[in-house]
């Protein structure tokens, strides 16, 4: 078996953070891979909710979109989107959420709206989607995001989604009911908030990554925890399961769709 890629390290590290039976709001891309990997390995009773309204989904292949038919077909049931956001998410019935973004700051706040000024952006990003309220309401969030000085920034161009706000307990004093980011999983390892200041600090490294690499990739002076752990390497079971999932997904997405020509 070839060595794990950094994407695979990220996905597997994220999957491991999910306890069996937890109720998880899933996003597309790495989060979807991580959640389904957890389901196919140590967490068979995890409940996956995609914001399209599919509850308890068990897809055989990863969806391209958040609302592929596969998600509905393998769901325990499908609810309208107002139910997802009001009766599940806002009601505090979801444990875990995964978020991505274009930019993150040291307090785990996220930007997925614009680069540059809002009214005249140099890059218009997709926007908020479910993120602001996922971040507000779930018990804990995980952020999956590759690190460069352009993505891990001193100051966000726009705050789409609050993490720990301005830090030092600001979130705990806010109206947000959820606990905020528990970890940021990036391509060199894992950052986690400091218990007092809420500032993200380096707590774990993937094999082959170093503190220096981490510092170079992060656009603010990166704090480092007293003890840095080494993330245990992907097991062959994890890697085989993940690669098989991706292979099934590639096959499925490569299959030509028959046009619904009348």
């Amino acid at each position, binding site marked *: 078996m070839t060595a794990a890629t950094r994407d695979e390290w990220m996905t597997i590290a994220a999957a491991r953070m999910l306890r069996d039976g937890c109720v998880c709001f899933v996003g597309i891309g790495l989060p979807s891979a991580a959640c389904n990997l957890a389901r196919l390995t140590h967490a068979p009773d995890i409940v996956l909710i995609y914001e399209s309204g599919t509850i308890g989904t068990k897809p055989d292949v990863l969806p391209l979109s958040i609302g592929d038919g596969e998600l509905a077909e393998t769901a325990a049931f499908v609810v309208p989107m107002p139910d997802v956001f009001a009766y599940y998410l806002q009601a505090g019935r979801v444990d875990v959420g995964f978020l991505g973004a274009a930019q993150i700051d040291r307090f785990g706040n996220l930007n997925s709206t614009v680069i540059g000024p809002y009214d005249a952006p140099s890059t218009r990003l997709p926007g908020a989607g479910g993120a602001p309220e996922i971040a507000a309401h779930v018990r804990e969030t995980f952020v999956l995001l590759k690190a460069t000085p352009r993505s891990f920034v001193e100051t966000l161009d726009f705050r789409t989604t609050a993490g720990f706000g301005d830090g030092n307990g600001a979130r705990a004093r806010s109206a947000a009911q959820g606990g905020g980011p528990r970890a940021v999983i990036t391509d060199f390892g894992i950052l986690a908030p400091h218990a007092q200041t809420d500032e993200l600090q380096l707590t774990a490294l993937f094999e082959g990554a170093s503190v220096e690499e981490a510092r170079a990739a992060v656009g603010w002076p990166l704090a480092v925890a007293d003890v840095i752990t080494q993330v245990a390497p992907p097991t062959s079971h994890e890697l085989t399961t993940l690669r098989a999932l991706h292979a099934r997904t590639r096959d499925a997405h490569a299959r030509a769709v028959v046009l619904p*020509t009348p």
Partner: protein
Amino acid sequence: MHAASLHDAIAAHVDDGASVALEGFTHLIPFAAGHELIRQGKRELHLIRMTPDLIYDQLIGMGCARKLTFSWGGNPGVGSLHRLRDAVEHQWPRPLELDEHSHAGMVAAFCAGAARLPFGVLRGYLDNDLDQANARIRRIECPFTGERLAAVPALNPDVTILHAQRADRAGNVALHGIVGAAREAAMAASKLIVTVEEIVDALPPAMNGIVLPHWVVTAVVHCPGGAYPSYAQGHYARDNGFYQRWDAIARDRDTFRAWMQGNVLDTADHAGFLARLDRQAA
């Protein structure tokens, strides 16, 4: 009986300048109806959709829209909507006013619209910049607890357009699978046009199914394949490959214009559009 041709339904019920919501979350996106808006050269539309998706990328790129109400504007799982970006970043082919929300906010706005309340309430827009970008995200105080919550103005489109699996001959429309906020967008609208895969004598029995009642439906159009490249659960799958190919088509203004000319403007209707794509694929 409300049955009409798509051409006639769009011509009769969608005016230039109208606010129009083509809803359906990933599933049941009314592409055929969107293309017909483009063929008829509609202008100054206020487009409303949680996820603009390719259909609004096309409408925006063809200059049909003056304003967009939305909450997530990407190509799902692929990347950017290049025509939406070009409109916002470079005002091409014309400036586009944004009315931007989160999903939770927009869902609350549709629900308020469907219930004919002037505003929706949510615990949301907490500690972020969205309410600075959109002055119509406001706060309201609970008259019992004093707590401050977010309020959004109701969305009541002039016209909502949906695609669904089936209608019966009375005009009742049944949807199944992922429905997003389609029902709320339908009930919130002044007029409701629905394209359907099939018109049947009797809807399949589903006591608690999702049905839009005939007296809320302005026009039903029989339009098989009307959601393609989105999908209709039970009829055909989403063409994920098309969504991926769209990235290259839409990235460049000329490629985009050529594609729209050849496949949408130069085809008479959705059957023609599908036949043309089918020939290209063969």
